[in-house]
């Protein structure tokens, strides 16, 4: 009964969305003027209906109702509760429903937070958001209903893929979707503004918090997914330029560019049509990601194996929405005259260059993802695009953008003084050179190529970090005025500035971690008998014992490994191999030896039977500075969140300020 109620609620959400669209359309005619304001209430009830549908699905998972097909395929009575719940979004159907819930909730949030928006713009935004809602809710309801029944109901479920039974992965999809779908609001704002034909600085101000929130969620979601790959897969890689990873990275890059161009638009009334273009592009890439993952054109851990028909439906939705958005843009963009003019050397120029470079980087990721697919479809010839391609294309573009970053932060609006800014940054440049020298001196087994990429990485990462610190020092005038006054200035800095500095430092930290980790990681592997040892990076790793340990829905072989270096015992680690009877599959559970910034971890492999007894394959991996790879994005997300709490950027504040 609950599942039927859930389906009913999903249908209700669909109908409410359609009604919202019709009301907004009707409101454009004289006879029905005023009816569009009912879209506000409808947006709330549509979100509630979708949430109830999702609650029904959650309930079915929690009580293991195997008469619901989706539960039967993705759950199991023995699964821990966390993974029963996360199973609700572990499949194509369930995650589509989550997508709809988030999409409609954002619609409700526009109503709740948009009191300060001009009425006609707000209703158009709601109308577009509802149109998206109707398309996706309709798709979920008619082609992928997660609440559909199965008859006869099986006695036991198939269980969720054990690889996905992991805390990081339980939260990865919701975070990612909050980001993907958050960009729909930006899309709706862009389409609404294009329909209105009016685009001014306040538009940029209204769009910024939504972009920022979506960007924070995307950052966290991607970082969590990458962290999962890093330790669950047990290979020590955290980014593989896999098409599905790229699919989540492209909206992030577009949103990053949008965040920066919206600043120029807000402050200087320039770059209008470019900003709107990015706003349309960001959600288009979100939808493209959804299509790529679900269409069956890609195979990957994250991809849902789904029949091509549903993929084609998603492609149709993508073409309708993006097509309509960009057609409208093509028709209206010419009439958006930009106001602010600026000199070649100015913060505007620096931000334009930043956008250009991020866009080039986005182009490389997009090409690298789609080119092999298109080429195989057109010519039948298969090619591979992987790390070497991105190192030659993506990395230089982002590298140059990072060289520009500290300049942009210190440059004045309208007309900047390059010489003056360089004078302020000389210290930061010197420190990054020093960092590079020290870093290279400390590196073991240096080769020319390794030295080159490490050197560039140290210089860039250091430059971004020290440059951002320098910017903070300029703003607070620390060491130039009494400390008390500098502290006052520090506290008076807007949260948005603190957030920006933190996010940029996070980027620098990430670059340092990424470059060091990729270039200097070490590993050792051997088949060990109990009592034997291997050595990695000066650590002696001894296999002490292997025990049988039962888990909630698996049986595990657990190794006891002790790690010693010159200073004595460092730690004891217990990696596992887990056998899941429900899906008869094996996962490896790595054991981490906690070090402050480095990672030292162990993987237990397959036992090999020899006449003298079992030999266990033990793999020891040493990843210097690996912690920074995930700490950097965390800082970025923290910076974004700080900025989100800046009073000036809150929704509606602009309009309220005017009234006062």
């Amino acid at each position, binding site marked *: 009964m609950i599942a039927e109620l859930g389906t009913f609620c999903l249908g209700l959400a669909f109908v409410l969305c359609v009604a919202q669209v019709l009301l907004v359309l009707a409101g454009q005619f004289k006879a029905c003027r005023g009816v569009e304001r009912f879209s506000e209430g409808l947006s709330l009830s549509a979100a509630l209906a979708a949430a109830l549908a999702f609650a029904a699905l959650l309930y079915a998972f929690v009580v293991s109702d195997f008469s619901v097909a989706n539960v039967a395929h993705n759950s199991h009575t023995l699964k821990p509760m966390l993974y029963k719940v996360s199973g609700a979004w572990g499949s194509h159907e369930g995650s589509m429903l989550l997508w709809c819930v988030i999409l409609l909730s954002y619609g409700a949030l526009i109503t709740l937070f948009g009191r300060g928006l001009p009425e006609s713009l707000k209703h158009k935004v709601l109308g577009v958001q509802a149109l998206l809602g109707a398309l996706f809710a309709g798709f979920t309801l008619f082609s992928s209903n997660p609440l559909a029944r199965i008859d006869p109901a099986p006695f036991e479920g198939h269980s969720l*893929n054990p*690889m996905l039974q992991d805390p990081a992965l339980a939260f990865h999809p919701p975070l990612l979707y909050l980001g993907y779908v958050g960009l729909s609001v930006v899309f709706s704002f862009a389409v609404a503004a294009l329909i209105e034909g009016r685009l001014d600085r306040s538009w940029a101000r209204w769009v910024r918090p939504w972009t920022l929130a979506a960007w924070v969620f995307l950052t966290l979601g991607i970082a969590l997914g990458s962290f999962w*790959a890093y330790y669950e*897969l*047990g*290979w020590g*890689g955290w980014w*593989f*330029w*896999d*098409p*599905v990873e790229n699919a989540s990275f492209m909206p992030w890059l577009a949103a990053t560019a949008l965040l920066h161009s919206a600043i120029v638009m807000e402050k200087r009334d320039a770059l209008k049509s470019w900003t709107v273009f990015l706003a349309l592009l960001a959600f288009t890439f979100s939808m493209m990601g959804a299509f790529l993952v679900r269409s069956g054109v890609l*195979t*990957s*851990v*994250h991809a849902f194996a789904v029949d091509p028909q549903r993929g084609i439906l998603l492609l149709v939705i993508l073409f309708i929405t993006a097509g309509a958005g960009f057609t409208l843009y093509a028709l209206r963009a010419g009439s958006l005259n930009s106001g602010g*003019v*600026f*000199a070649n050397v*100015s913060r505007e*120029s620096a931000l*334009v*260059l930043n956008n*250009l470079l991020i*866009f*080039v980087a986005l*182009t*490389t990721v997009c*090409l*690298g993802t789609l*080119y092999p697919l298109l*080429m195989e479809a057109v*010519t039948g*010839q*298969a*090619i*591979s695009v*992987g*790390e*070497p*391609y991105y190192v*030659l*294309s993506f990395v230089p*573009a982002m590298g140059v953008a990072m060289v520009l970053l500290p300049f942009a932060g210190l440059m004045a609006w*309208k*007309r900047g003084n390059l010489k003056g800014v360089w004078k302020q940054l000389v210290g930061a440049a010197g420190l990054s050179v020093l960092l590079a020298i020290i870093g290279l001196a400390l590196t073991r087994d240096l080769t020319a190529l390794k030295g080159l990429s490490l050197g560039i990485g140290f210089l860039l990462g250091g430059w971004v970090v020290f440059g951002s610190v320098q910017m903070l020092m300029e703003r607070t005038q620390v060491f130039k005025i009494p400390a008390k006054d500098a502290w006052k200035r520090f506290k*008076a*800095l*807007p949260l*948005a500035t603190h957030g920006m500095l933190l996010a940029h430092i996070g980027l620098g930290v990430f670059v340092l971690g990424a470059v060091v980790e990729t270039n200097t990681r070490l590993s*050792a*592997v051997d088949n060990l008998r109990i009592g034997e040892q291997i050595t990695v990076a000066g650590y002696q790793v001894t296999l002490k014992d292997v025990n049988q340990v039962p888990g909630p829905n698996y049986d595990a072989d657990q190794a006891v490994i002790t790690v010693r270096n010159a200073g004595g015992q460092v730690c004891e680690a217990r990696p596992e191999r887990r056998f899941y009877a429900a899906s008869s*599959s*094996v*996962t*490896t559970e790595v054991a981490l030896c906690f070090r402050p910034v480095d990672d030292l971890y162990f*993987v237990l*492999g397959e036992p090999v039977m020899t006449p003298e007894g079992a030999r266990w*394959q033990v*793999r020891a991996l040493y990843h210097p500075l690996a912690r920074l790879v995930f700490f950097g994005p965390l800082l970025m997300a923290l910076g974004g969140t700080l900025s989100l709490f800046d009073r000036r950027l809150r929704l509606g504040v602009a309009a309220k300020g005017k009234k006062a």
Partner: protein
Amino acid sequence: MSRKILILLAMIFGLTQIASAVLPSEVMRDPDQDARARMLYREVRCVVCQNENIAGSSADIAADMRRDIRLHIREGLSDADIRQTLRDRYGDYVLFRPALNPATLALWFLPVTVLIIGGVIFLRLPRKATAVDVAELSAEERARLDKLLEDDNNRSS
């Protein structure tokens, strides 16, 4: 990310050895040759895996491919020769760095084209020089402006 598939394959076909890649026994004696081999491993795709290079793959075929590469290095082939040998045997698919040919022209040069077009548009954006001259401010307006700028300096980001 393809590792799940690999692991499944590994279990299905008994390719076991889940957590293994370059084994200690695979290290080449000459450190220069070893460095070259390791660079090449990262460019070469494990042909039965989804999206994985042979440096990280534990599949038997990846080990075979690594052995072939070491053999070629010892025979004195250049990196380019080795890439060509691999391509002849497995097709373009085997290299993660796509070869430059008419079919991949756009892949390699579109980003540069975007950069150039964007750069040209950037250089043709309206400049300060074209801005209209603004009438001089009166003393009272000047004072107000200074105050506003002062406030703005304290708040702006």
